[in-house]
């Protein structure tokens, strides 16, 4: 039975999921836009973020520290991966980059499985975010609202970094033409490393924030990666606003379809993607010829 309250609740769910997907996809899309590498290990970063947060939470018992520590860890992991492996693949065909990041993803997932086993792990939401909140017209789990808030704040932060700082200006210039940026005397490799770290952090951060909602397994990143693909195909590859718009659209499609029949929610996402591809192949906010 579809009631108004149910519908509104699902709209909120869609918003929360959408904001999360937007964050993950933004990470994927700024890496692709700047470095030209589609990181197939991005789902593994999401998962690794969750586990890193889990470890910090075990040690400290603080959710906030878990989020901060996990995020820092992912910046480090991303930077190291860029430095040790990805850097040697800029001159190679895009297919090789896909293969190596795909392999890296598997190695990371299997390492975590090796270290933590295949059992599910849980990080509870912080005490102040337990229970439900009365929103006047509907009752909604508090942590979901917190998650929505965190995702919105971090997207805004990412936006500020990308559009209001010197680093962001270099990154956006790099998306347009990284060769030219190099010619202007900017050390693009250092920028690439930072961008890969930030992209990985966006995924990892989303991974931690999501753990109180969806429990952790080593395979949690796989379906997220596929959904992030859908998001950036819908929004337009390499476009930060596209990732945000695509994420919100995907989140709403997913939630509203599950209200009618959860079995079709993923399929509907791909229907939406196909329609976008047929009508506007470069994505809603994408630029023609960038691929």
């Amino acid at each position, binding site marked *: 039975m579809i009631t108004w309250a149910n519908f509104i609740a699902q709209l909120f769910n869609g918003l929360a999921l959408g904001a999360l997907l937007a964050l993950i996809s933004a990470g994927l899309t700024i890496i*692709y836009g700047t470095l030209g590498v*589609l990181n197939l290990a991005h789902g593994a970063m999401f998962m690794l973020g969750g586990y890193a947060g889990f470890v910090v939470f075990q040690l400290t018992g603080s959710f906030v520290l878990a989020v901060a520590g996990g995020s820092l860890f992912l910046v480090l992991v991303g930077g190291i991966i860029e430095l040790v*492996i990805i850097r*040697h693949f800029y001159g*190679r065909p*895009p*297919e*090789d980059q*896909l*293969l*190596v990041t*795909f*392999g*890296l993803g*598997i*190695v990371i997932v*299997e*390492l975590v*499985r*090796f270290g933590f086993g*295949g059992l599910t792990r849980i990080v509870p939401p912080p005490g102040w975010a337990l229970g439900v909140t009365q929103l006047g017209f509907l009752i909604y789990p508090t942590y979901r609202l917190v998650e929505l808030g965190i995702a919105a704040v971090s997207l805004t932060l990412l936006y500020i970094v990308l559009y209001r700082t010197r680093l962001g200006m270099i990154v956006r210039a790099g998306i347009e033409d990284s060769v030219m940026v190099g010619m202007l005397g900017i050390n693009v490799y250092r920028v690439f490393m930072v961008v890969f770290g930030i992209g990985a952090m966006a995924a990892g951060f989303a991974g931690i924030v999501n753990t109180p909602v969806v429990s952790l397994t080593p395979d949690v990143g*796989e*379906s997220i990666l*596929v959904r992030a*693909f*859908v998001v*950036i*195909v819908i929004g337009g*590859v390499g476009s930060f606003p596209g990732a945000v718009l695509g994420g919100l659209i995907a989140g709403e499609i997913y939630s509203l379809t599950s209200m009618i029949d959860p*079995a*079709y929610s*993923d*399929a509907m996402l*791909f229907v939406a*993607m*196909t329609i976008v*591809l*047929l009508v506007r*192949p470069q994505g809603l906010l994408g630029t023609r010829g960038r*691929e």
Partner: protein
Amino acid sequence: MLKRIPYLVEILTAVGLIAAPYLLPYLGFAPNTVNRILVWGLFGIGFDILFGYTGLLSFGQSAFYGTGGFVAAYLLTVLGFPNVWLAILIGTVVASIVGYLVGLVALRRTGIYFAMITVAIAEVFYFVEFSPLSEYTGGENGLPGVPTPSLYLGFTTLHFTGGWAMYPFLAACYFIGIVIALRIVRSPTGAVFSAIRENPLRASAVGHNVHAYKLMAFVVSAVYAGFAGCLLGILQGFMPPEAFTFETSGQLVMQTAIGGTGTLFGPLLGAAVWLFLQDFLQSSLDFGAAWKLVLGVIFVLLVCFLRRGIIGGFVDVIAYFTAKPHPPAPEEAPVTAEISAAISPLASVGLVRRREEAPFTGPVIEARGVTKSFGGIVANKNINFTVEQGELRGIIGPNGAGKSTFFKMLTCEMPPTSGQIFFHGRDITGLDIASVCQLGLTKSYQVNQLFTRLTLRENVVIAALAERRGKFSLDLLRRIDKVPGLDEQVEATLGMVGLTARADVPVAELAYGEKRRLEIALALAASPSLLLLDEPLAGMSPRERVETVQLLKNIRRGRTLIVIDHDMDAIFGLAEKITVLHDGALLAEGTPAEIQRNKLVQEAYLGGVAAA
């Protein structure tokens, strides 16, 4: 050496398949492992044609593997189909139809987009199998009770039950698969596939319908995947839902990369390594679940250091020890004489595409009010331009005058913002570049657009194939040497540019001047009646310039040429008429003498100094 004995690869494969059950048990292979390797190997043949040969990396092959398998399994179990062979056939056909439809969507984009879309589409199949269609597919339980095949031979019936008894059936299927695949990659279509992998832009510029060929490669991969999926159900007596997972597609990609892409046998070898290590690490070394970690690390190392996999590495080692030096480029030999001698006027006329309709007497090409703007920048402003039959026209202009943009519009590489282009009186505005090339209009590029990893001859063959076979032809199983007139076309083209002696050298090893001549040869092989040359002399040494000017004089016989260049001496000597572009607009047009006297032209080049 491999080419001397016909069917050598096929014979060796047959011998290997027959010997395998006698040898592999000594290495610790269980019969069921060998059977699974064959199914993976067959699955991978199609993927290798798609990725290794055509350059399209799909992460969604599981969709067709699962579709073929579940259709066959459904027919055999739920519907009680009596004939296993027929079920396999139907399963494979359904998978190929699905492949065609998916290809229509996925191939709208290339590269990284294509990979992402295939992943996403394969996920749809997985969800559909699990939920909406679970009534038919058994959801997460799959379809149990798939029967094994048998073959009635007249006097006895062969029952392919499990283990080694199943092996001959699967080995025969694999053999059929590899024989067909070998024919495909050696066919004209196979040559076009590799052209698409190397340089899709040039493949369409010489007149191939790249999209149609990509779709064909995609369908071929779906056929193999569907066929292998059918065999998986039969092999296991049960059709597992895991066939549809992303993990299946990923494992296929990894196995192919481990074994070696672009080798056809790579997937088989990769599967053997994969399954052997999996068994070995799990049972003998007691690694438990960590086997996949080890395989993942091996895979990453291979991608980093041995990009063509085990077979590729092996081939490189052999090539290193048995390498014969290629005939060197003739140092001070009179190449000019060779070029002139190699080509008689008649032969050059023979290379011009014969036009069947009544001869058109108007201008060969006409541009009416052509304008091109990129955002706010106007690259070409309202250009009116005509060239008559048999003319050699020069186009000059300072850098940034819009010459190359103008050429791109004449060959329909990009559409004009406004205006029209007529070729032999026919409006070609908005046609695609391949169709225009098929009409007899093509160009050589300012920056070389070659098929770099192929030999010089293979390059010319690809261009000549478009001329011989048209935009698209479904000759998957035809031998390339059976294309009528191909050899003559290729030899004549090579002769014209004086590269016959270097025909079997890989493009990467050619000198720059030779690459430039090959660039022209690719355009010539399409037998154009109108040939556009974008800076054919750029970057050449003085001696190479003399040779190329001679070449241009030769190839103009029987055709119309338009040449862009900055070498004023050469172009004023060659052309009857010269068009000057400046700031995207037509500045002047006339004979070389008129242009030399033109005040406007002098100012455009010298910034008014000449007037002072």
